[in-house]
């Protein structure tokens, strides 16, 4: 039976609707919880988050995929309550944003242990809850080069994906060759992998998008909205038009089925200031109008935000 794991149980792929495939309810680096400068009351967190999710829902958003890995402030009961109160489906992930967000216990773990951790969270539940992970997060540590721990996490994720069917999404699409090697060695079809942040400003010139596309991988334009035109853009920002043109070039070249788009916004950041003015609703407010203005038809937009993510997230026969 085809299904997608959400924090409130499995749903049919047809129920996903419009999907924001790489987002965060709230992200913080491990250890940021010790620094009171970032603390927010639960009241404040709900106040910052609920209106964004409600607007997402009103805009036609169906599903919010949270990319906050283990050790980064992932908070399942909170996600469950947000989902229940706003009507937005939330998919939680297992895995790590990158080796440099895996704390010592996991940094010293074997591939096999990491695989069992991921499989448990996908098939039994996350942190004692009944909520099962719907996707596995992996990533490249800072420095644009895969570290040994990153590779161990990629291999464990590939094995867990094969075992459970859930897909993988990556933090950064740079230094992709070692990743492609691991996925090939493990026998994971690359349509189960979304190579994320292929569009961010600091990665340009370091992403071998042709290799990803040729191998059948999916390409994530999932930092839409981190525009250098913002008043205080982050270091990974990019000029708005340049990113859009990059995306359109791939659409025009016939790669639509391998493309996914998202905003990577934090509803209420946990361990950093966040980027003022940037929310998941950028997708509706800026990106889709811009795509229409560029002549992208509604059927194509539907493929990018509905058909492709459904195919990507669905597990089971």
């Amino acid at each position, binding site marked *: 039976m085809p299904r997608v794991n959400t924090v409130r149980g499995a749903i049919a792929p047809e129920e996903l609707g419009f999907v924001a495939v790489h987002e965060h309810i709230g992200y913080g680096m*491990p250890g940021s919880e*010790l620094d009171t400068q970032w603390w927010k009351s639960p009241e404040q967190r709900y106040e910052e988050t609920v209106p964004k999710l409600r607007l997402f829902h009103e805009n036609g958003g169906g599903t919010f995929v949270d990319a906050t890995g*283990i050790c980064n402030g992932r908070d399942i009961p909170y996600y469950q309550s947000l989902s229940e109160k706003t009507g937005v489906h939330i998919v939680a992930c297992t895995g790590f944003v990158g080796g440099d967000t895996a704390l010592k*216990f*996991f940094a010293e773990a074997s591939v096999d242990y990491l695989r069992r*951790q991921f499989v448990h969270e996908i098939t039994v539940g996350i942190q004692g809850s009944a909520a099962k992970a719907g996707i596995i997060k992996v990533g490249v*540590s800072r420095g644009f080069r895969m570290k040994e721990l990153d590779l161990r996490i990629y291999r464990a994720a590939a094995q867990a994906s094969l075992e459970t069917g859930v897909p993988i999404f990556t933090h950064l699409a740079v230094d992709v060759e070692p990743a492609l090697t691991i996925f090939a060695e493990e026998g994971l079809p690359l349509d189960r992998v979304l190579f994320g942040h292929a569009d961010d400003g600091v990665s340009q010139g370091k992403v071998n998008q042709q290799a990803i596309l040729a191998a059948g991988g999916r390409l994530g334009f999932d930092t839409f909205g981190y525009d250098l035109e913002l008043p205080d853009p982050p270091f990974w920002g990019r000029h708005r038009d340049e990113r859009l043109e990059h995306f359109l070039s791939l659409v025009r070249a016939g790669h639509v089925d391998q493309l996914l788009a998202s905003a990577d916004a934090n509803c209420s950041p946990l361990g950093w200031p966040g980027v003022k003015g940037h929310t998941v609703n950028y997708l509706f407010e800026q990106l889709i109008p811009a795509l229409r203005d560029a002549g992208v038809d509604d059927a194509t937009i539907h493929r990018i935000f509905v058909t492709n993510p459904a195919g990507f997230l669905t597990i089971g026969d």
Partner: protein
Amino acid sequence: MNGTVHTVLGDIPADRLGVVAVHEALLSVAPGAQYAYDIPFDRAEIFAALAAKLRAFAAAGGGAIVDATGMFHGRDLPLYEALSRATGVHIVASTGQGPEDELGGYFLTPQTNPPTPWPAERFAELYAREVSEGMVVPRVERRGAAGLIATGATRAGMTATEESQFRGCARAAAITGVALSIRYGADARHDLGVVLDAALPAERIVVGGLDRADAIAAGAPAAVAEAGAYVAIDHIGQAGEVDDATRAALVAGLIAAGHGDRVILSSSATGVAKGLPDAGVAYTHVLEAFMPLLRDAGVPDDGIHRLLVDNPARLLAVKEG
């Protein structure tokens, strides 16, 4: 003994601590193990196990225990407060972090470009506030004041971030008057030098791990004492290259050399260990098994009292600014 000590239930006069175990752990959690799929955290069970061990410590004559593993290794303040109330054992909790592999990415690879690890000043502020404003229950609240600042270096040798960490901890100790515990990495003299260089008086520092074989071979215990810092013989009861008879001889030698006011004894026991090996030593080991060895080695009872009561009290008493 003058001064007061920060315990999890508030400040108490240092002379009320009694016998103190300075380098121990209550709940000891490898960073990240709290998220492991196969490690249960049953709070009632953890409480019962720790309470039984603390009661045994008290029955053996113990008065106070220091959870000396810092702010990110399973420290659980509500649990410790309840344990102290239930058992009558004074509990001192610590701030600080380290060695480097135990730090989160927030400190090592911050969301800046480039991802420069934290400098000493930021660590100093983080830890000083755990004394002046209270220790954190992450994202919830601050509780009582930290009674010790604890850090450590990598066995292979102090890393650059650990040097920042040591300097930051030294500054926090100087500002707040709370003592500093350093678990040395490869070279005890060097690591002590780093914190002395940060203008913390030697009498406010305890160096851990000095009963390691490499420390004994290098003459580090006497060197640390001669520098005026406290010497922690703090793996008593743990199996390894050094046995307790060797430790007893080491302690007797330090006392004979006139360093009796600079030695403290502990076991680095783990009350409840999660995601790391249990040290396999009871809090009672020093009192029940090691004291007879010290007597056999010729240490008189008043000398033992100094090691177990007076020295820790002097170390833990907050220095007035």
